[in-house]
């Protein structure tokens, strides 16, 4: 049975690695190989502080184990062998369970992990043959632990991640982790220094006490001929694996008899609590604005884009502060508004075929555009203005006031109409897998340059000469000019978006429908 499962898994992987995905898979493989080589290199390196090597390798092994567990959770349990395929097979859960566990070892990514965990051998080899042998045993145990833990995680969390709420949560977490990781990369040298200089017993204690660190601790103990600790660590790893393997058929049986939807249909109190309808007027414009405000609060895509805009903008400002520079702080609010603008340049494409509701209601195109404009203004505007004013005041960069007071209100006023117009002219439906299409991602990136260029060029035309010529008058003149231009631009682009939707509504709808997954 293991053979059949491996064959099925290989066929699925072959399908997934053809065509345009092949290049993506190749790039990913190259990236993971680099990470594995980096981990191995960390094991080969000599450190001044005695236990530093074990600290570093333990930390990196933790990273690899987290990768093994989170990989399937992020991609869903349909990568490779999906458990639901086997629900109806007349095979006992125990037999199926061990067959699936066996098939899980036929995984190409094991090769990368083998290279990475070989850092344990490298670490041991620095102290002699015995420690290297302990490293080899620890490497094998870590590999088995990685595969088994990943399978157990799928069985435990599978039903949750397959449900819509679970996918929403995973998407949010993934976006959050990627954003924070990319921003925290500037902290890596700091953490690495703490791990290798021996001055942080708490940090090294934590990475060693976790099961992912036991292999490194065993090698470290072997290098000091502390065979008792070595044996305890290796036995601990083996026992952990045994416990997971023994619990596996039971978990699988539970998983196979569960509905993938999780059947936990809970009505959310949030849907009752958030009723802007009570505040908004009972008019068509109020109705569209209410719908939009609710969707900003509830749609995962929208709240994710807002969250990323906010986190990136604030973190960029704060990272500067950590290095003692507050010069970027006044512009965090502007950066938030800019990213939030670029993210929402695909309003009609992102809302999908729900556009039919607007098209079948007579005269609804005009209020639909105006409601979208108003809602973006209400959601992003106050937050952007508040961030700008507070952070500029805190930073003490008084020279920045005319710059931010010209640019931020102009963005908040000028962008919403422009976004609706861009969204009505350029409609990017989702990719076949339901995610954003490459064209949509490209549009967002282009908008990061084009939108501020269009909205802010009159302000820049006064601010830059004002700064060069030390003219306070020119710089402050930029404020009313920028706002006047933004009002003009906002009104014209809103009207253009309305005309576009009225004239080409069915074509916009056809474009969205053709792309709908």
């Amino acid at each position, binding site marked *: 049975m293991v053979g059949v499962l491996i064959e099925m898994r290989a066929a699925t992987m072959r399908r997934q690695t053809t065509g345009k995905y092949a290049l993506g898979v190749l790039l990913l493989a190259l990236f993971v190989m680099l990470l594995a080589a980096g981990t191995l290199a960390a094991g080969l390196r000599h450190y001044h502080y005695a236990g530093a090597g074990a600290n570093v390798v333990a930390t990196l092994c933790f990273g690899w184990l987290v990768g093994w567990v989170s990989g399937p959770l992020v991609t869903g349990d349909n990568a490779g062998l999906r458990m639901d395929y086997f629900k109806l097979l007349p095979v006992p859960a125990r037999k199926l369970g061990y067959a699936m566990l066996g098939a899980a070892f036929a995984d190409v990514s094991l090769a990368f992990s083998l290279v990475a965990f070989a850092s344990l051998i490298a670490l041991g080899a620095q102290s002699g043959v015995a420690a290297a042998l302990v490293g080899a045993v620890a490497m094998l145990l870590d590999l088995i632990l990685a595969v088994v833990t990943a399978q157990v995680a799928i069985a435990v969390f599978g039903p949750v991640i397959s449900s*819509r709420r679970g996918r929403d949560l995973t998407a949010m977490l993934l976006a959050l982790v990627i954003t924070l990781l990319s921003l925290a990369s500037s902290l890596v040298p700091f953490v690495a220094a703490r791990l290798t200089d021996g001055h942080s017993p708490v940090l090294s204690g934590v990475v060693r006490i976790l099961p992912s660190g036991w292999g490194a601790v065993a090698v470290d103990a072997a290098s000091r001929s502390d065979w008792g600790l070595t044996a305890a660590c290796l036995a601990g790893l083996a026992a952990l694996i045994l416990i997971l393997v023994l619990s596996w058929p039971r978990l699988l049986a539970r998983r196979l008899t569960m509905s993938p939807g999780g059947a936990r*249909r809970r*009505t*959310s*109190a949030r*849907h*009752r609590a958030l009723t802007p*309808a009570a505040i908004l007027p*009972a*008019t*068509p414009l*109020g*109705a*569209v604005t*209410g*719908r939009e405000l*609710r*969707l900003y609060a*509830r*749609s995962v895509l929208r709240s994710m884009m807002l969250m990323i805009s906010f986190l990136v903008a604030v973190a960029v400002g704060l990272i500067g502060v950590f290095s003692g520079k507050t010069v970027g702080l006044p512009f965090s609010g502007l950066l938030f508004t800019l990213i939030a603008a670029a993210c929402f340049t695909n309003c009609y494409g992102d*809302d*999908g*075929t*729900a556009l*039919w*509701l*607007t*098209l*079948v*209601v*007579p*005269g*609804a195109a005009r*209020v639909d555009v105006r409601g979208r404009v108003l809602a973006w203004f209400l959601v992003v505007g106050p937050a952007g203005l508040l961030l700008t004013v507070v952070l500029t005041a805190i930073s003490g960069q008084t020279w920045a006031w005319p710059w931010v007071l010209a640019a931020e209100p102009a963005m908040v006023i000028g962008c919403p109409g422009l976004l609706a117009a861009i969204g009505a002219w350029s409609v990017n439906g989702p990719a076949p897998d339901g995610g954003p299409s490459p064209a949509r991602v490209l549009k967002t990136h282009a908008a990061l340059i084009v939108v501020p260029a269009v909205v802010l060029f009159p302000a820049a035309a006064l601010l830059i000469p004002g700064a060069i010529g030390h003219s306070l008058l020119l710089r402050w003149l930029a404020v009313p000019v920028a706002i006047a231009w933004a009002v003009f631009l906002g009104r014209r682009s809103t009207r253009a978006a309305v005309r576009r939707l009225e004239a080409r*509504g*069915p*074509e916009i*709808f*056809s474009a969205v*429908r053709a792309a*709908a997954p």
Partner: protein
Amino acid sequence: MDGDDTAALEFDGLFKRFGDHVAVDHIDLIVPAGSFFGLVGPNGAGKTSSLSMAVGLLRPDGGTVRIFGHDVWADPVTAKSLIGVLPDGLALPDRLTGREILRFLGLLRGLPRDVVEQRAGELLTVLELDGAQTTPVADYSTGMKKKITLATALLHSPRLLLLDEPFEAVDPVSAATIRTILQRFVAAGGSVIFSSHVMALVERLCDHLAVLAAGKVVASGSLDEVRGAQSLEDAFVGIVGARTDGAEGLSWLAS
């Protein structure tokens, strides 16, 4: 122009092409006012394309569509104010609850808030969706989504309902409720046109029907004119010229 003798819906030389494929091939069709009209045909016959052109979701390449005499594409505001639409397989703003969608649509159509609230409450109760008042539509079953879409079509009290596969994925109890609602609507002077694959349902509900095949109307008229002395299912198979063997091969099955 809106008198009783005016057709509820009229296709005149309606034509639509997607690339080389002609989806709707110069259709002429009249749906009499006050009729319960069935639109049947095999998959890909052009039913959804025709209905989409009738409601303003798909621009025709030729011909006209009139609703109670008003051209849908030349006078869309008047024409669209007369219809209620249930499309097949299209999204709703699914993070909203059913009641929120109805409230949004009612206000968008300019109805007063108290009227919207009262009608939304009644529709949710009749369609047995009142138990899911706080559930976002994303968590609805397929049948529930169908029912809330039907509620959006009925909310503003239209004169003509255009329904694309309204009974698909709907449980028998809900289907009976929907049938009763539609029959009451027609009895009160409304007109319904709906597409379906279920011949028994069309035979039971409709007084008129049209059979579409390969983008053309191959038969239309009253129910009795189209089916003659046989069942509608037999008449349909005969009209569209389908093969109904399924008898060749599979000798190993249940042997």
